[in-house]
Protein backbone atom coordinates (compact mmCIF):
# COMPACT_ATOMS: atom_id res chain seq x y z
CA UNK A 1 0.00 0.00 0.00
CA UNK A 2 1.33 3.39 -1.01
CA UNK A 3 0.21 6.28 1.21
CA UNK A 4 0.11 9.98 0.38
CA UNK A 5 0.36 12.14 3.51
CA UNK A 6 -0.72 15.79 3.68
CA UNK A 7 -0.04 18.21 6.54
CA UNK A 8 -1.22 21.84 6.87
CA UNK A 9 -1.87 22.31 10.59
CA UNK A 10 1.04 24.65 11.27
CA UNK A 11 3.05 27.13 9.28
CA UNK A 12 4.32 24.77 6.60
CA UNK A 13 2.46 22.90 3.91
CA UNK A 14 3.83 19.38 3.54
CA UNK A 15 3.25 16.24 1.49
CA UNK A 16 4.95 12.85 1.55
CA UNK A 17 4.72 9.47 -0.14
CA UNK A 18 5.30 6.37 1.97
CA UNK A 19 5.75 2.80 0.76
CA UNK A 20 4.26 -0.20 2.50
CA UNK A 21 7.65 -1.06 4.00
CA UNK A 22 7.91 2.47 5.48
CA UNK A 23 10.37 3.61 2.83
CA UNK A 24 9.90 7.34 2.31
CA UNK A 25 9.69 7.92 -1.44
CA UNK A 26 9.19 11.67 -1.07
CA UNK A 27 9.01 14.14 1.83
CA UNK A 28 8.30 17.73 0.76
CA UNK A 29 7.95 20.68 3.16
CA UNK A 30 7.39 24.27 2.02
CA UNK A 31 10.26 25.81 3.98
CA UNK A 32 9.32 29.31 4.97
CA UNK A 33 12.05 30.54 7.29
CA UNK A 34 13.68 32.59 4.56
CA UNK A 35 10.48 34.59 4.06
CA UNK A 36 9.72 34.85 7.75
CA UNK A 37 13.18 35.95 8.86
CA UNK A 38 12.55 39.35 7.28
CA UNK A 39 9.67 39.93 9.70
CA UNK A 40 11.41 38.78 12.90
CA UNK A 41 8.93 35.96 13.41
CA UNK A 42 6.71 33.52 11.62
CA UNK A 43 3.97 35.39 9.80
CA UNK A 44 0.74 33.38 9.70
CA UNK A 45 -0.94 35.74 7.26
CA UNK A 46 1.66 34.66 4.73
CA UNK A 47 1.46 31.08 5.93
CA UNK A 48 -2.31 30.96 5.64
CA UNK A 49 -2.26 32.17 2.05
CA UNK A 50 0.70 29.97 1.33
CA UNK A 51 -1.21 26.83 2.33
CA UNK A 52 -3.69 27.49 -0.45
CA UNK A 53 -1.03 28.52 -2.91
CA UNK A 54 1.33 25.72 -1.94
CA UNK A 55 -0.91 22.68 -1.53
CA UNK A 56 -1.12 21.69 -5.21
CA UNK A 57 2.54 22.46 -5.85
CA UNK A 58 3.72 20.53 -2.77
CA UNK A 59 1.55 17.45 -3.46
CA UNK A 60 2.55 17.38 -7.15
CA UNK A 61 6.20 17.72 -6.19
CA UNK A 62 5.91 14.80 -3.75
CA UNK A 63 4.38 12.60 -6.47
CA UNK A 64 7.03 13.70 -8.96
CA UNK A 65 9.88 12.87 -6.57
CA UNK A 66 8.26 9.50 -5.83
CA UNK A 67 8.02 8.95 -9.60
CA UNK A 68 4.34 8.09 -9.17
CA UNK A 69 1.01 9.13 -10.54
CA UNK A 70 -2.00 9.97 -8.37
CA UNK A 71 -3.57 6.69 -9.58
CA UNK A 72 -0.73 4.76 -7.90
CA UNK A 73 -1.75 6.05 -4.46
CA UNK A 74 -3.75 3.59 -2.34
CA UNK A 75 -4.50 5.79 0.68
CA UNK A 76 -4.60 9.51 1.40
CA UNK A 77 -3.90 10.61 4.99
CA UNK A 78 -4.23 14.21 6.15
CA UNK A 79 -3.86 16.08 9.42
CA UNK A 80 -7.31 16.61 10.91
CA UNK A 81 -6.21 18.63 13.97
CA UNK A 82 -5.28 20.28 16.21
CA UNK A 83 -4.64 23.72 14.75
CA UNK A 84 -6.33 26.69 13.19
CA UNK A 85 -9.49 25.62 11.38
CA UNK A 86 -8.68 27.63 8.24
CA UNK A 87 -5.22 26.11 7.81
CA UNK A 88 -6.38 22.57 8.56
CA UNK A 89 -9.26 22.84 6.10
CA UNK A 90 -6.88 23.51 3.20
CA UNK A 91 -5.07 20.18 3.59
CA UNK A 92 -8.00 18.11 4.84
CA UNK A 93 -10.40 19.24 2.11
CA UNK A 94 -7.73 18.72 -0.52
CA UNK A 95 -7.22 15.17 0.74
CA UNK A 96 -10.96 14.49 0.65
CA UNK A 97 -11.18 15.85 -2.89
CA UNK A 98 -8.28 13.65 -4.03
CA UNK A 99 -9.90 10.65 -2.39
CA UNK A 100 -13.22 11.44 -4.04
CA UNK A 101 -11.77 11.80 -7.53
CA UNK A 102 -9.51 8.73 -7.29
CA UNK A 103 -11.95 6.51 -5.41
CA UNK A 104 -9.31 5.78 -2.78
CA UNK A 105 -9.90 5.86 0.99
CA UNK A 106 -8.73 8.76 3.14
CA UNK A 107 -8.08 9.06 6.88
CA UNK A 108 -7.75 12.01 9.25
CA UNK A 109 -4.76 12.00 11.59
CA UNK A 110 -4.04 13.81 14.85
CA UNK A 111 -0.88 15.83 14.29
CA UNK A 112 0.51 14.82 17.69
CA UNK A 113 0.08 11.11 16.88
CA UNK A 114 2.30 11.75 13.88
CA UNK A 115 5.04 13.18 16.10
CA UNK A 116 4.69 10.36 18.64
CA UNK A 117 5.21 7.74 15.92
CA UNK A 118 7.83 9.56 13.84
CA UNK A 119 10.62 7.31 15.16
CA UNK A 120 9.14 4.54 12.97
CA UNK A 121 10.35 6.45 9.92
CA UNK A 122 13.90 5.49 10.90
CA UNK A 123 15.67 2.22 10.02
CA UNK A 124 15.86 1.21 13.70
CA UNK A 125 12.33 1.07 15.12
CA UNK A 126 11.54 1.56 18.82
CA UNK A 127 9.83 -1.16 20.87
CA UNK A 128 6.61 -0.54 22.81
CA UNK A 129 6.13 0.76 25.38
CA UNK A 130 8.24 3.90 25.08
CA UNK A 131 8.26 7.47 26.33
CA UNK A 132 8.09 10.34 23.86
CA UNK A 133 9.33 13.84 24.57
CA UNK A 134 7.78 16.24 22.04
CA UNK A 135 9.34 19.71 22.05
CA UNK A 136 8.37 22.41 19.56
CA UNK A 137 7.25 26.03 19.28
CA UNK A 138 3.75 25.21 20.41
CA UNK A 139 4.22 22.01 22.40
CA UNK A 140 6.30 20.65 25.23
CA UNK A 141 4.89 17.33 26.42
CA UNK A 142 5.78 13.86 27.65
CA UNK A 143 3.72 10.87 26.50
CA UNK A 144 3.73 7.17 27.14
CA UNK A 145 3.15 5.22 23.91
CA UNK A 146 1.88 1.64 24.34
CA UNK A 147 1.05 0.82 20.72
CA UNK A 148 0.20 2.64 17.50
CA UNK A 149 -3.09 3.89 18.95
CA UNK A 150 -2.64 4.17 22.71
CA UNK A 151 -1.06 7.35 24.01
CA UNK A 152 -1.07 8.63 27.57
CA UNK A 153 -0.24 12.25 28.34
CA UNK A 154 2.12 12.33 31.32
CA UNK A 155 3.07 15.99 31.48
CA UNK A 156 2.93 19.19 29.45
CA UNK A 157 3.83 22.84 29.72
CA UNK A 158 1.76 25.01 32.01
CA UNK A 159 2.74 28.24 30.26
CA UNK A 160 5.29 28.63 27.44
CA UNK A 161 6.51 25.80 25.23
CA UNK A 162 10.30 25.32 25.10
CA UNK A 163 10.52 26.42 21.45
CA UNK A 164 8.50 29.51 22.24
CA UNK A 165 10.88 30.32 25.13
CA UNK A 166 13.81 30.11 22.68
CA UNK A 167 12.01 32.37 20.22
CA UNK A 168 10.98 34.96 22.79
CA UNK A 169 14.35 35.06 24.57
CA UNK A 170 16.05 35.56 21.20
CA UNK A 171 13.65 38.43 20.58
CA UNK A 172 14.34 39.91 24.05
CA UNK A 173 18.07 39.79 23.40
CA UNK A 174 17.65 41.07 19.86
CA UNK A 175 19.67 38.28 18.28
CA UNK A 176 17.44 37.25 15.40
CA UNK A 177 15.05 34.66 14.06
CA UNK A 178 14.55 31.72 14.21
CA UNK A 179 15.26 31.90 17.93
CA UNK A 180 16.53 28.36 18.52
CA UNK A 181 19.48 28.41 16.10
CA UNK A 182 20.29 32.04 17.06
CA UNK A 183 20.51 31.18 20.79
CA UNK A 184 22.54 28.04 20.08
CA UNK A 185 25.00 29.97 17.93
CA UNK A 186 25.74 32.37 20.80
CA UNK A 187 25.53 29.62 23.43
CA UNK A 188 28.37 27.64 21.79
CA UNK A 189 30.77 30.48 22.61
CA UNK A 190 29.38 31.05 26.09
CA UNK A 191 29.84 29.94 29.69
CA UNK A 192 26.66 28.20 30.91
CA UNK A 193 27.71 28.67 34.56
CA UNK A 194 27.97 32.45 34.32
CA UNK A 195 24.32 33.21 35.13
CA UNK A 196 22.26 31.35 37.70
CA UNK A 197 18.85 30.88 36.09
CA UNK A 198 15.87 29.09 37.64
CA UNK A 199 14.70 25.59 36.75
CA UNK A 200 10.97 25.09 37.32
CA UNK A 201 10.79 21.57 38.75
CA UNK A 202 7.23 22.21 40.04
CA UNK A 203 5.78 19.82 42.62
CA UNK A 204 7.71 16.74 43.74
CA UNK A 205 7.45 14.11 41.01
CA UNK A 206 5.58 16.37 38.55
CA UNK A 207 6.20 15.71 34.85
CA UNK A 208 4.80 19.11 33.84
CA UNK A 209 6.97 21.90 32.47
CA UNK A 210 7.11 25.66 32.95
CA UNK A 211 9.38 28.02 31.00
CA UNK A 212 7.68 31.38 31.53
CA UNK A 213 9.58 32.15 34.74
CA UNK A 214 12.87 31.35 33.02
CA UNK A 215 12.05 33.77 30.21
CA UNK A 216 11.28 36.50 32.75
CA UNK A 217 14.50 35.70 34.68
CA UNK A 218 16.53 36.19 31.47
CA UNK A 219 14.71 39.48 30.94
CA UNK A 220 15.56 40.63 34.47
CA UNK A 221 19.23 39.66 34.10
CA UNK A 222 19.40 41.43 30.75
CA UNK A 223 17.89 44.59 32.20
CA UNK A 224 20.32 44.50 35.14
CA UNK A 225 23.30 44.25 32.85
CA UNK A 226 22.14 47.48 31.24
CA UNK A 227 24.88 49.35 29.44
CA UNK A 228 27.52 46.68 30.05
CA UNK A 229 26.13 44.44 27.31
CA UNK A 230 28.62 42.89 24.94
CA UNK A 231 28.89 39.71 22.88
CA UNK A 232 30.65 37.86 25.72
CA UNK A 233 27.76 38.54 28.10
CA UNK A 234 25.20 37.71 25.46
CA UNK A 235 26.93 34.39 24.75
CA UNK A 236 27.07 33.55 28.47
CA UNK A 237 23.42 34.45 28.94
CA UNK A 238 22.38 32.33 25.94
CA UNK A 239 24.47 29.39 27.19
CA UNK A 240 23.01 29.66 30.69
CA UNK A 241 19.48 29.86 29.28
CA UNK A 242 19.92 26.92 26.88
CA UNK A 243 21.43 24.87 29.69
CA UNK A 244 18.44 25.61 31.95
CA UNK A 245 15.91 24.54 29.28
CA UNK A 246 17.79 21.38 28.33
CA UNK A 247 18.42 20.45 31.96
CA UNK A 248 14.68 20.46 32.74
CA UNK A 249 13.69 18.64 29.52
CA UNK A 250 16.23 15.88 30.08
CA UNK A 251 15.71 15.51 33.84
CA UNK A 252 11.91 15.26 33.51
CA UNK A 253 12.24 12.65 30.74
CA UNK A 254 14.54 10.54 32.90
CA UNK A 255 12.22 10.98 35.88
CA UNK A 256 9.29 9.76 33.75
CA UNK A 257 11.27 6.71 32.65
CA UNK A 258 12.02 5.90 36.27
CA UNK A 259 8.46 6.48 37.47
CA UNK A 260 6.95 4.29 34.75
CA UNK A 261 9.79 1.79 34.55
CA UNK A 262 9.98 2.29 30.79
CA UNK A 263 13.39 1.85 29.21
CA UNK A 264 13.03 3.56 25.80
CA UNK A 265 12.77 7.26 24.99
CA UNK A 266 11.87 8.89 21.66
CA UNK A 267 12.48 12.55 20.84
CA UNK A 268 10.22 14.59 18.53
CA UNK A 269 9.28 18.16 17.58
CA UNK A 270 11.26 21.03 16.07
CA UNK A 271 13.41 21.75 19.14
CA UNK A 272 14.92 18.26 18.77
CA UNK A 273 17.19 19.90 16.17
CA UNK A 274 18.94 21.60 19.12
CA UNK A 275 22.47 20.20 19.42
CA UNK A 276 22.78 20.75 23.17
CA UNK A 277 19.54 18.83 23.76
CA UNK A 278 20.65 15.94 21.54
CA UNK A 279 24.10 15.74 23.15
CA UNK A 280 23.02 15.97 26.78
CA UNK A 281 20.04 13.64 26.26
CA UNK A 282 22.34 11.08 24.63
CA UNK A 283 24.87 11.25 27.48
CA UNK A 284 22.36 11.08 30.29
CA UNK A 285 20.28 8.30 28.70
CA UNK A 286 23.46 6.25 28.28
CA UNK A 287 24.37 6.85 31.94
CA UNK A 288 20.86 5.85 33.03
CA UNK A 289 20.76 2.77 30.81
CA UNK A 290 17.94 4.07 28.63
CA UNK A 291 17.57 3.28 24.94
CA UNK A 292 17.29 6.61 23.11
CA UNK A 293 15.79 7.08 19.64
CA UNK A 294 16.66 10.34 17.92
CA UNK A 295 14.86 10.57 14.59
CA UNK A 296 16.49 12.63 11.83
CA UNK A 297 15.68 16.32 12.13
CA UNK A 298 13.44 16.27 9.03
CA UNK A 299 11.29 13.59 10.72
CA UNK A 300 11.15 15.48 14.04
CA UNK A 301 9.98 18.80 12.60
CA UNK A 302 6.51 19.12 11.07
CA UNK A 303 6.31 16.81 8.08
CA UNK A 304 3.80 14.69 6.17
CA UNK A 305 5.69 11.38 6.25
CA UNK A 306 4.74 10.94 9.91
CA UNK A 307 1.11 11.72 9.00
CA UNK A 308 1.21 9.09 6.22
CA UNK A 309 2.65 6.52 8.64
CA UNK A 310 0.11 7.19 11.42
CA UNK A 311 -2.69 7.29 8.83
CA UNK A 312 -1.85 3.87 7.44
CA UNK A 313 -1.86 2.36 10.93
CA UNK A 314 -5.19 4.06 11.60
CA UNK A 315 -6.76 2.63 8.43
CA UNK A 316 -5.65 -0.88 9.33
CA UNK A 317 -7.13 -0.56 12.80
CA UNK A 318 -10.29 1.48 12.34
CA UNK A 319 -11.06 1.70 8.64
CA UNK A 320 -11.36 4.75 6.38
CA UNK A 321 -12.69 8.18 7.27
CA UNK A 322 -16.12 9.37 6.22
CA UNK A 323 -17.05 12.35 4.03
CA UNK A 324 -18.70 13.99 7.03
CA UNK A 325 -15.46 13.99 9.06
CA UNK A 326 -14.44 17.51 10.01
CA UNK A 327 -11.26 19.17 11.26
CA UNK A 328 -10.81 19.93 14.97
CA UNK A 329 -9.01 22.78 16.72
CA UNK A 330 -8.28 21.03 20.01
CA UNK A 331 -6.73 17.63 20.50
CA UNK A 332 -7.96 15.30 23.20
CA UNK A 333 -5.23 12.84 22.36
CA UNK A 334 -3.87 11.09 25.41
CA UNK A 335 -6.19 12.95 27.75
CA UNK A 336 -9.66 11.42 27.61
CA UNK A 337 -9.91 8.08 25.85
CA UNK A 338 -6.14 7.63 25.77
CA UNK A 339 -6.52 6.43 22.22
CA UNK A 340 -6.05 7.84 18.79
CA UNK A 341 -8.59 10.61 18.07
Amino acid sequence: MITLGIESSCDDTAAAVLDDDDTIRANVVSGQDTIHARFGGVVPELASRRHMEAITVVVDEALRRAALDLRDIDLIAATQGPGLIGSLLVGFSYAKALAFTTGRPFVGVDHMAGHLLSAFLEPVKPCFPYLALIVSGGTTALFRVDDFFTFTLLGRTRDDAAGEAFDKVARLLGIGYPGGPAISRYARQGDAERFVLPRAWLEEGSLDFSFSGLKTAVLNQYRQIGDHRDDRLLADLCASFEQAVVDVLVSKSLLAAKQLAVSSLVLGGGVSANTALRTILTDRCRAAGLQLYLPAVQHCTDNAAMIAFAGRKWLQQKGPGSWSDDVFSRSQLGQVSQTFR
Partner: protein
Amino acid sequence: MSNSGKIILTSPVQTGRFGRLLGALCEPGDVIGLGGDLGAGKTALTQAIAAGAGVDPAEYVNSPSFALLHEYHGRIPFYHMDFYRLHGADDVVALGLDEYLYRSGIAVVEWYERAESVFPDSTLFVDLDIVDAGRRFARLRSGALSWKQRIEQLTDRLAGTPDKP
Protein backbone atom coordinates in the same frame (compact mmCIF):
# COMPACT_ATOMS: atom_id res chain seq x y z
CA MET B 1 -13.22 57.01 38.56
CA SER B 2 -14.28 56.80 34.93
CA ASN B 3 -14.18 53.74 32.71
CA SER B 4 -10.43 53.64 33.07
CA GLY B 5 -8.09 53.01 35.96
CA LYS B 6 -4.55 52.39 37.15
CA ILE B 7 -3.65 49.62 39.54
CA ILE B 8 -0.28 48.83 41.03
CA LEU B 9 0.35 45.08 41.31
CA THR B 10 3.06 44.58 43.89
CA SER B 11 3.76 40.88 43.30
CA PRO B 12 2.85 37.96 41.02
CA VAL B 13 0.48 36.82 43.80
CA GLN B 14 -1.40 40.10 43.60
CA THR B 15 -1.47 39.90 39.80
CA GLY B 16 -3.15 36.53 40.30
CA ARG B 17 -5.76 38.04 42.63
CA PHE B 18 -6.40 40.84 40.17
CA GLY B 19 -6.91 38.36 37.34
CA ARG B 20 -9.26 36.10 39.30
CA LEU B 21 -11.39 39.07 40.37
CA LEU B 22 -11.49 40.31 36.79
CA GLY B 23 -12.44 36.85 35.50
CA ALA B 24 -15.24 36.56 38.05
CA LEU B 25 -16.69 39.85 36.78
CA CYS B 26 -16.65 38.73 33.13
CA GLU B 27 -19.87 38.19 31.22
CA PRO B 28 -20.60 36.40 27.93
CA GLY B 29 -19.41 38.50 25.02
CA ASP B 30 -16.67 40.30 26.96
CA VAL B 31 -13.39 40.98 25.17
CA ILE B 32 -10.18 41.78 27.05
CA GLY B 33 -7.03 42.95 25.25
CA LEU B 34 -3.76 42.52 27.13
CA GLY B 35 -0.71 44.62 26.28
CA GLY B 36 2.85 44.91 27.55
CA ASP B 37 6.36 43.71 26.79
CA LEU B 38 7.66 40.16 26.75
CA GLY B 39 7.77 38.92 30.34
CA ALA B 40 5.24 41.47 31.60
CA GLY B 41 2.94 38.66 32.74
CA LYS B 42 0.20 38.55 30.10
CA THR B 43 -0.09 34.76 30.03
CA ALA B 44 0.03 34.59 33.85
CA LEU B 45 -2.75 37.19 34.01
CA THR B 46 -4.80 35.26 31.44
CA GLN B 47 -4.46 32.11 33.56
CA ALA B 48 -5.89 33.98 36.54
CA ILE B 49 -8.72 35.50 34.48
CA ALA B 50 -9.59 32.00 33.21
CA ALA B 51 -9.60 30.64 36.76
CA GLY B 52 -11.90 33.48 37.85
CA ALA B 53 -14.15 32.84 34.86
CA GLY B 54 -14.57 29.20 35.87
CA VAL B 55 -12.24 27.37 33.51
CA ASP B 56 -11.41 23.99 35.05
CA PRO B 57 -7.98 24.17 36.77
CA ALA B 58 -7.19 20.78 35.17
CA GLU B 59 -7.09 22.58 31.81
CA TYR B 60 -3.76 24.34 31.65
CA VAL B 61 -4.17 27.75 30.11
CA ASN B 62 -0.80 27.86 28.36
CA SER B 63 0.60 30.28 25.83
CA PRO B 64 -1.11 30.35 22.40
CA SER B 65 1.75 32.31 20.78
CA PHE B 66 2.36 29.57 18.22
CA ALA B 67 -1.10 28.03 17.92
CA LEU B 68 -2.65 31.56 17.93
CA LEU B 69 -5.89 30.34 19.55
CA HIS B 70 -6.71 28.03 22.45
CA GLU B 71 -10.34 27.27 23.36
CA TYR B 72 -11.47 26.29 26.85
CA HIS B 73 -14.84 25.31 28.23
CA GLY B 74 -15.64 26.93 31.56
CA ARG B 75 -18.74 28.61 32.96
CA ILE B 76 -18.82 30.22 29.53
CA PRO B 77 -16.57 29.44 26.52
CA PHE B 78 -13.13 30.98 26.93
CA TYR B 79 -11.07 31.97 23.86
CA HIS B 80 -7.41 32.70 24.52
CA MET B 81 -5.65 34.33 21.57
CA ASP B 82 -2.21 35.77 21.01
CA PHE B 83 -1.40 38.25 18.25
CA TYR B 84 2.37 38.11 19.01
CA ARG B 85 3.19 36.67 15.59
CA LEU B 86 0.74 38.82 13.64
CA HIS B 87 1.35 42.05 11.79
CA GLY B 88 -1.91 43.96 11.71
CA ALA B 89 -5.63 43.65 11.20
CA ASP B 90 -5.27 41.94 7.80
CA ASP B 91 -3.57 38.96 9.45
CA VAL B 92 -6.30 38.68 12.09
CA VAL B 93 -9.07 38.75 9.48
CA ALA B 94 -7.26 36.41 7.08
CA LEU B 95 -7.00 33.85 9.88
CA GLY B 96 -10.62 34.34 10.95
CA LEU B 97 -9.58 35.23 14.50
CA ASP B 98 -11.78 38.36 14.55
CA GLU B 99 -14.86 36.11 14.65
CA TYR B 100 -13.95 35.05 18.18
CA LEU B 101 -14.28 38.68 19.33
CA TYR B 102 -18.00 38.62 18.57
CA ARG B 103 -19.06 35.35 20.14
CA SER B 104 -20.98 34.70 23.33
CA GLY B 105 -17.87 33.61 25.21
CA ILE B 106 -15.02 35.49 26.86
CA ALA B 107 -12.15 36.43 24.56
CA VAL B 108 -8.78 37.33 26.04
CA VAL B 109 -6.18 38.51 23.52
CA GLU B 110 -2.49 38.95 24.28
CA TRP B 111 -0.53 41.48 22.17
CA TYR B 112 -3.69 43.36 21.17
CA GLU B 113 -1.40 46.23 20.06
CA ARG B 114 -0.60 44.26 16.90
CA ALA B 115 -4.12 44.87 15.58
CA GLU B 116 -6.03 47.24 17.83
CA SER B 117 -8.48 48.25 15.08
CA VAL B 118 -10.19 44.83 15.03
CA PHE B 119 -11.45 45.15 18.61
CA PRO B 120 -15.04 46.17 19.41
CA ASP B 121 -15.65 49.44 21.32
CA SER B 122 -16.69 47.48 24.37
CA THR B 123 -13.24 45.90 24.76
CA LEU B 124 -11.43 46.29 28.07
CA PHE B 125 -7.75 46.99 27.39
CA VAL B 126 -5.26 46.16 30.13
CA ASP B 127 -1.66 47.32 29.64
CA LEU B 128 0.97 45.87 31.92
CA ASP B 129 4.04 48.02 32.53
CA ILE B 130 7.11 46.40 34.06
CA VAL B 131 8.15 48.43 37.13
CA ASP B 132 10.81 46.04 38.43
CA ALA B 133 11.35 42.28 38.83
CA GLY B 134 8.11 41.63 40.77
CA ARG B 135 5.97 44.73 40.31
CA ARG B 136 3.66 45.69 37.46
CA PHE B 137 1.48 48.66 36.69
CA ALA B 138 -1.89 47.71 35.18
CA ARG B 139 -3.52 50.45 33.11
CA LEU B 140 -7.17 49.75 32.36
CA ARG B 141 -9.33 51.49 29.76
CA SER B 142 -12.49 50.84 27.83
CA GLY B 143 -14.85 52.78 25.58
CA ALA B 144 -17.80 51.08 27.25
CA LEU B 145 -19.64 52.26 30.34
CA SER B 146 -20.37 48.63 31.18
CA TRP B 147 -16.81 48.38 32.44
CA LYS B 148 -17.00 51.55 34.58
CA GLN B 149 -18.80 49.96 37.51
CA ARG B 150 -16.84 46.75 37.19
CA ILE B 151 -13.47 48.52 37.27
CA GLU B 152 -14.59 50.31 40.46
CA GLN B 153 -15.70 47.02 42.03
CA LEU B 154 -12.42 45.46 41.02
CA THR B 155 -10.37 48.27 42.54
CA ASP B 156 -12.35 48.12 45.80
CA ARG B 157 -12.09 44.37 46.13
CA LEU B 158 -8.40 44.37 45.34
CA ALA B 159 -7.82 46.95 48.09
CA GLY B 160 -9.91 44.91 50.55
CA THR B 161 -9.08 41.71 52.41
CA PRO B 162 -7.19 39.11 50.39
CA ASP B 163 -9.36 36.36 48.99
CA LYS B 164 -8.39 32.72 49.22
CA PRO B 165 -5.75 31.69 46.70
